[in-house]
């Protein structure tokens, strides 16, 4: 099993290298010059020149790329062009908020998605199942920012139950502030989970080993919740993993609506301000999160499925 993992991690290195290069060159090609933006209305040409030298943008592309590469490998993402604050500090500050949001959303998605998926599988082909399917489709199809603003208006303005902005400090307050945004994202993923859970559950129920279990006289509840559920959980874990990437990029808009700091809004502002070091830093961190999540999914995959654990 460990050999399997080493191979998987080694495979990610070329991917990461490819991503870093794409990020670097894509940014250099994007129109808009950070010095101009910073100087705003009265940016005199020599001031622009001075800033370029300060930012090291005057050096040839290849040199910039090489310095960028060996900095990144040593984990130093450089300093923000504007505030000269070190990028890694900004990332460390922004990362926990996105991480909490992602985790809480997945948590809510599982709490809603998995049980409803099971129920929909048990009550297959009934009215309830069809109803659930349509509802989950509506939630899946509705754009996240509409759902978000809807929750905000109802649960924050009309019924002043939840705060509409900020992150709060202290463990419980953070959760309290997380509820609305994570429900917005969570329901979307839950909808996908329901559909996936239900179809994978149905597939398991019709497998041969279920007939053996029933022939052993095991009560229907156990047949369903012990045997069928266990095997149908495996593909669901991959769905969560896949949704993770979508979630991180979707979080950008949710962080905007709920005025939450985080990796998404950091990257977004940096792109608009052409703050290359910050963009590079946050996208690389994005990438690391996704790769780690995929590894975690593989880990839980083998945890659940003994056959892979042995191979």
């Amino acid at each position, binding site marked *: 099993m460990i050999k399997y993992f080493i191979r998987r991690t080694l495979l990610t290195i070329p991917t990461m290298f490819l991503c870093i290069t794409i990020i670097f060159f894509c940014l250099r090609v994007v129109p808009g010059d950070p010095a101009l933006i910073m100087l705003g209305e009265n940016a005199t040409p020599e001031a622009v020149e001075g800033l370029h030298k300060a930012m090291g943008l005057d050096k040839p592309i290849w040199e910039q790329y090489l310095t960028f590469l060996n900095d990144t490998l040593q984990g130093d993402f450089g300093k923000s062009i504007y505030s000269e604050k070190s990028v890694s500090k900004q990332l460390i500050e922004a990362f926990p908020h996105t991480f909490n949001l992602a985790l809480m959303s997945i948590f809510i998605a599982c709490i809603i998605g998995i049980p409803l998926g099971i129920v929909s599988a048990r009550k297959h082909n009934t009215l309830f199942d069809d109803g659930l399917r349509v509802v989950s489709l509506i939630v899946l199809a509705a754009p996240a920012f509409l759902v978000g603003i809807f929750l905000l208006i109802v649960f924050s303005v009309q019924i002043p139950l939840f705060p509409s902005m900020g992150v709060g400090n202290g463990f419980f307050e953070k959760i309290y502030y997380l509820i609305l945004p994570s429900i917005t994202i969570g329901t979307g993923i839950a909808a996908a989970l329901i559909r996936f859970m239900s179809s994978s559950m149905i597939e398991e129920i*019709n*497998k*041969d*080993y279920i*007939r*053996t*279990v*029933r*022939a*052993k*006289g*095991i*009560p*229907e509840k*156990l047949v369903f919740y012990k*045997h069928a559920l*266990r*095997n149908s959980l495996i593909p669901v874990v991959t769905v969560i993993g896949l949704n993770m990437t979508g979630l991180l990029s979707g979080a950008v808009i949710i962080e905007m609506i709920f005025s939450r700091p985080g990796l998404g809004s950091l990257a977004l502002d940096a792109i608009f301000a052409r703050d290359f070091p910050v963009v590079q830093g946050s996208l690389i961190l994005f990438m690391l999160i996704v790769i780690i999540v995929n590894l975690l999914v593989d880990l839980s995959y083998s945890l*659940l*499925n*003994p*056959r892979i654990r*042995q191979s």
Partner: protein
Amino acid sequence: MGVLLEVKNISVGTRRNGEFIGILENVSFKLNKGETVGIVGESGCGKSMTALTIMGLLSKNIFVESGTVNYEDKELTKLPTTELNRLRGKEISMIFQEPMTSLNPSFTIGNQLAEVYKHHGNFSAKEIRQKSLEILSKVKISDPEDKLKAYPHQLSGGMRQRVMIAMALACSPKIMIADEPTTALDVTVQAQILDLINELQAGFNTSVLFITHDLGVVAETCHRMIVMYAGQIIEEGTVAEIFDHPSHPYTSGLMLSAPRLGSAIKRLKTIKGVVPDIDNMPTGCRFAPRCPYATDICFEKAPFLEKMSETRGVRCWHKL
């Protein structure tokens, strides 16, 4: 010998846009204590369906139209699942054809074996472990200690079939239904499993309902045999009687198309034609279109299962 299980005029089928389509047509037979009865027939003749009807394991869209399955004083087809579950695995158990897919890949053998004991008796964990080891050695599985911790994919086909048998016989049931247990295994393992079943059958004095398409297996293990064709029983009797003198053309056709070691016949005889489709069953005798001896009557009037003796019966107008 007391009658253990009696299947009376069972008809099973499904409903497709309103119209009822029969799969089994009033199948009746008895199973006595300690006896092994074989059900033989081509694939699709309904032999597995009969077994699933007894066990109450029919899939959702197939149901029992009429007829009863009596076991001791209970009528199995009407029993609610909770009560049926008290019998299944304890008094009537079943093993299946595909050992590769019949065990849950995510649980250890020990876990799946212990389940049977847990639900059919209140044993302590230690007792369960003890009984599991005992039953595993009974089915001749080498070093049962490791096997308890092993996962199904780590065992060979034959080994898995032995585990299935162990699970079936764990609570020394009165009846064991074996649905083509050896078909998916290669010949050498097939023989070991058959010997094992015979040995255990004698040891536990369990009566076995053996479903197969292999006449050789029937000859070797069964006392009585039933031949089924297109959802009907067309011939029944002791193995000796039928092998000695098959009186239904289909049965004799089956016998002749089975190659015999050392027999002079070079080319095997085959039965021409194909099993009729269930949603357009021929009127009259269902074997008529393929029967060399068929006459007009066979096409118009459906023959009934004529009882020639206590054990013997044939459904044919021109018995051989």
